[in-house]
C-alpha cells in the first residue's frame, strides 16, 4: 500500500531523511519510531504531499504523491501532531467541511459521519462546539474525520501526545476497530513504546535520517536481544538526548501553550 524507495530529503547541507526504504502492506498497522529530530515528521510530510523529496520514490496505492497529488490525497487521511479542528464549529460541522472538501456525496457524507461519530462515542456531543471538548475527545474527532472519506491509508503523527492512559487506550481500540473493519492501512508515529508494541503489526526505527531496523515488534526485540521494545529502541538509537533547535512551529507551540493555559 505504501512503497518507499531510497527516499532522501536535504535541507541545505542537512540531510533529514537519508536513503530510507520500506513497504507497508494493505491493512497493516505500521509504527514509525525514532527520537526527536530523527526524520519522522519529514517522512510523513513527504508521504502526504506536503513536502517534495530530494530524491527517491514514493508510491501510495500505486500513485506518486508528487505528480498525482489530488488522486493521492483522496486515498489518505491524516491526523497532524498539532490540532487541526475548528474550535468555533461543532463536531458535526467539522465533519461536514471535511466531507465537502473531499467530495464525499451528500448522502454518504451524512451516513458516514453518523456512523463514525457513533463509533468514536461523540454522537451525543455532535452539536457542541469543539472548543468545549477535552483533549481526548478532540483527538477522537480528528481521527473519525480522517476516516470520513474512506481512505485506504491513515497517517497518525503522535496522536496520543498529551493524553491520559484512559484516552490513549480508548483511542487505539477505536483505531484498531476501523483498521479491522475497513482494512485501512495505518501509518503512525509515537513516543510511547508500549503503544507501538501493542498496536503495531510492524515497526520501523529511524535515527539520524536512516532506517536502523524494521520488522515485527518481536523480531526487533530478538534482533537486539532485549525484553521490551523500549530497551530495543534505546539499544538501537543510543541514550543520548536529542535537542532539537527551536523551529518556528515549536515557537508557535510554546505560544499556544501560554495562551491556552497548558491545555492541548
Amino acid at each position: 500500500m505504501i512503497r518507499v524507495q531510497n527516499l532522501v530529503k536535504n535541507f541545505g547541507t542537512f540531510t533529514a531523511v537519508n536513503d530510507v526504504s520500506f513497504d507497508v502492506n494493505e491493512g497493516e498497522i505500521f509504527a514509525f519510531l525514532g527520537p526527536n529530530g530523527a526524520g519522522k515528521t519529514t517522512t510523513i510530510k513527504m508521504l502526504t504531499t506536503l513536502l517534495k523529496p530530494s530524491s527517491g520514490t514514493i508510491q501510495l496505492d500505486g500513485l506518486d504523491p508528487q505528480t498525482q497529488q489530488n488522486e493521492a490525497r483522496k486515498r489518505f487521511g491524516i491526523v497532524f501532531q498539532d490540532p487541526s479542528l475548528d474550535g468555533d464549529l461543532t463536531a458535526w460541522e467539522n465533519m461536514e467541511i471535511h466531507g465537502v472538501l473531499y467530495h464525499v456525496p451528500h448522502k454518504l457524507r451524512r451516513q458516514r459521519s453518523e456512523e463514525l461519530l457513533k463509533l468514536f462515542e461523540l454522537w451525543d456531543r455532535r452539536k457542541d462546539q469543539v472548543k468545549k471538548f477535552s483533549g481526548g475527545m478532540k483527538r477522537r474527532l480528528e481521527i473519525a474525520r480522517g476516516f470520513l472519506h474512506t481512505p485506504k491509508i491513515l497517517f497518525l503523527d503522535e496522536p496520543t501526545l498529551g493524553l491520559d492512559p484512559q484516552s490513549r487506550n480508548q483511542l487505539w481500540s477505536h483505531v484498531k476497530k476501523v483498521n479491522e473493519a475497513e482494512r485501512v492501512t495505518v501509518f503512525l508515529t509515537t513516543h510511547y513504546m508500549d503503544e507501538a508494541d501493542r498496536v503495531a503489526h510492524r515497526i520501523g526505527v529511524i535515527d539520524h535520517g536512516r532506517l536502523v531496523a524494521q520488522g515485527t515488534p518481536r523480531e526487533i526485540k530478538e534482533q537486539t536481544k532485549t525484553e521490551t521494545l523500549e530497551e530495543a529502541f534505546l539499544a538501537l538509537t543510543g541514550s543520548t538526548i536529542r535537542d532539537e533547535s527551536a523551529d518556528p512551529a515549536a515557537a508557535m507551540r510554546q505560544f499556544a501553550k501560554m495562551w491556552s493555559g497548558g491545555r492541548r
Partner: protein
Amino acid sequence: MSAIYILWLREVKRYVRSRAQIVASLGQPLLYFLALGFGLGPVFQRAGYGSYLQIVAPGVIGMSVLFSSIFSGLGLLWDRQFGFLKETLVAPVSRLQIMIGRTLGGATVAVVQGLLVTALCLLFGFRPVNPWLIPLAIAFMIAIALVFAALGVAIGSSLQDMQGFQLIMNFLVMPIFFLSGALFPLSNISKVLLTITKLDPLSYGIDGMRSIYLGRSAFNPATDALVLTSIGVVLLVIGAWRFSRIEI
C-alpha cells in the same frame, strides 16, 4: 465551487458565533467617533471647516473594515499551524480555491462589521447628504475589505511566527490607518503628508466614501474606485501566489 462556498461559510459562521468579540470590536471605532468627533468638533467648526463628526465617520467606518479584513488574513499564520487550515492544505482541493474561500469569507465579515459601525455612526449623529447613496458606499467598503484581506493573506502566508505579527501591526497596520486621512481631511495638508497619503490604499477607500457621504472629496470617486480595484487585483494575485507557497 463547493469548497470555496464551505470555506466562506466557515468564516461567516465563526463571526456570527463570536458575539462577545463583535461587541468588543465595535467599541474602538465608536470611541474614535465619539471622542474625536465631539472632542475636536468645536475647534474644527471654529476654524471654518464644518462638522468634524461628518468628516471622521467615513474614516472610522474605513478603519473597522481595515482592521477586520487584514486580521482575518493575518490569522492565517495561526490557522495553518493550529487551526483548520492545515486540514484543508492536504485536501484534494486546489490552493487557489482555499485562498479565495477564505479571503471572501474574511472580506464578508469585514463588510458586515463596517455596516454595523455605519449604523452606530448614524445613530450618534452622522448625517450623509444623501442616504440613498449608501449602497455605493458599501461598494467602497467591499473594495477596502478585499484589498486588505488579500494583503493580510499575502503577509500571513509569509510570516513564520508571532513576533512578526507584532511588527506588522506596528509598522504596517497602524500606519495604514493613521496615514490614510481617516482622522483628518486631505485638504490643506502639507505636500509631504499628502504624498505619503497617496501611497496608502486606504486613503482612496475613505476618500471614496467621503465623496459619497459628504459630497466632497480630495481625489475623485472614479479615481478612488480605479486605484482600489487595481491594487485589489494585484494584491489578490500576490496573496494567491504566497498562499500557494505555504509549507507546513
